[in-house]
């Protein structure tokens, strides 16, 4: 059994205009999990992330990080250990050079300067952007900005990394790069939460899927189990992953033997066909 890292209990959040965004959300997150958070626009995913990171204060509800209940005093501890890569990199990048930008988080952690420089260099190499560390962010392309915003969080060495719709506004090549980074981070045992509308990606990558709908979690479990649950998919306005749909169609027409070996990617699918 893996260790519980973050426990969210009965979280309620109401926006200033009286619209309730989170309506009693409870979830347990274990170390090293790869979680895809699905749900239509306005279903409360981003609000949930901001609450979990302590940026927004919930109406009521508890956030427990490694056994400590988070209150105003140890909020910083929570922010230090949970990093968010925001959807729009332009809303995150604040400094006027890439180097200073990536160093912003570590500097706020009040680390010694040598340590900051070391971490920044590491993060830049990790994201393969060492070449433009002196460049200002306004001369970077969208994909490069995204990489910078990920390097921001890597430099902070947080245990949990939250990606808010990372694949939005990326070209296919950058999306592949992003997936590689995600796999690499996953192999290093980071806990990751990713909100996405790309069900194929969620099906391929995630170990666990959480589905939000109107501020509530309506489903939480293995990707396969969730994506086979037509009820949930309909409620959350999601479609089935293409791979799964094709597999099921083929099985239904008796073109394939039903071995319950659900392929997650085209490569896996090809292997099944070759048999």
């Amino acid at each position: 059994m893996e260790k519980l890292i973050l426990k969210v209990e009965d979280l309620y959040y109401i926006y200033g205009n009286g619209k309730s965004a989170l309506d009693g959300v409870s979830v347990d997150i274990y170390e090293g999990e790869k979680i895809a958070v699905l749900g239509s626009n306005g279903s409360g995913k981003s609000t949930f992330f901001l609450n979990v990171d302590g940026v927004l204060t919930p109406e009521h509800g508890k956030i427990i990080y490694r056994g400590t209940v988070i209150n105003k005093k140890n909020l910083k501890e929570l922010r230090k250990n949970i990093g968010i890569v925001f959807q729009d990199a332009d809303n995150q990048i604040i400094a006027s050079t890439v180097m200073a930008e990536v160093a912003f988080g570590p500097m706020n952690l009040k680390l010694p300067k040598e340590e900051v420089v070391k971490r920044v260099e590491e993060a830049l190499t990790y994201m393969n952007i060492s070449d433009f560390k002196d460049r200002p962010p306004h001369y970077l392309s969208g994909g490069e900005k995204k990489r910078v915003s990920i390097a921001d969080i890597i430099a902070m060495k947080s245990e949990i990394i939250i990606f808010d719709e990372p694949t939005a506004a990326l070209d296919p090549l950058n999306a592949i790069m992003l997936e590689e980074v995600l796999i690499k981070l996953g192999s290093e045992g980071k806990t990751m939460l990713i909100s996405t509308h790309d069900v194929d990606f969620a099906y391929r990558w995630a170990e666990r899927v959480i589905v939000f709908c109107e501020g509530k979690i309506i489903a939480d479990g293995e990707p396969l189990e969730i994506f086979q649950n037509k009820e949930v998919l309909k409620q959350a306005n999601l479609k089935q992953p293409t791979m799964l749909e094709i597999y099921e169609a083929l099985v239904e027409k008796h073109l394939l033997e039903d071995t319950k070996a659900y392929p997650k990617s085209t490569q896996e699918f090809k292997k099944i066909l070759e048999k």
Partner: protein
Amino acid sequence: MEKIIILCAIFLMAVFLFKWKHRSEYTQRDGTYHHKHKFGHKHGEGSSIDFYAYASKIRHWNATFKVSLSVLTLILCIVFDNPYVSVVVIIAMAYLTVVKGELSAYGYLSILTIPIVFILLGTFTIAIDFSKQPIGQYNLYLGFCYVFTSEAKLKTVVFLILKVFAAISALQMMTLSTPSSEIIYVLRKAHVPKLIVELMSLIYRYIFILMDVYTKMKNSAESRLGYCDFKTSCYTFGSIASNMLVVSLKKANAYYDAMEARCYDGDLIFLEEDKKVETIQIVAAAAFIIFIILLWGFTR
């Protein structure tokens, strides 16, 4: 004295022409096509100055060194009020920017056109005067009054132009070789109040974001015929302006969230790296300053 100034001006022109020709030959040999800019400044020049600063070959020089050299030169220029000093400064700064910084002479001149226009407009009124009587060394009858001037006055104006131009080129050397973030860093080291320095760095970053948002809005309005006639243009401009306000408020919120998520707690601190200043640079700068002072001493 005038002869020397004229000589210097000719020399300056020759340097520029040489660089220019050299460049065009180079381009032809290379076979690459460079954009043919129209002479003079284009709109959005602000960002091109910023771009030149990043492209400059003397960018890696220590920022404090560059800023102090340029400010010291500026002060000396104004304090000495000496045409020789001014000419030397103009040439030296052009040399630093164009030859050392490898900014094209073309780009340099086109950036300088903005201040030159202002200087000429400003000094023109000093050179001439109006009168009912035909007085002064030179006068011109305009039908109802005389415009007159004198040699001494013209001389003052030329010296004034030289002084202002030298001061501007000293500052231009700084802006064309040092990115704003580094200038802000120097100011921080010079103990300029934190509030101002933080505001400067934020404003610098957001100017580009605002411009970006504005361009996007303008383009989308244009694609929907938002600028088809004068009345519509005014209306569109107003809508964009009000929309920008809303967007900037929203962006400010999003930014604050993003900063808080990264442990921001009231102090904007950025990592700044010190670049080494080479001895030869200091020696050269000191020699230059001493030369200026000596020049002033001998020609006073």
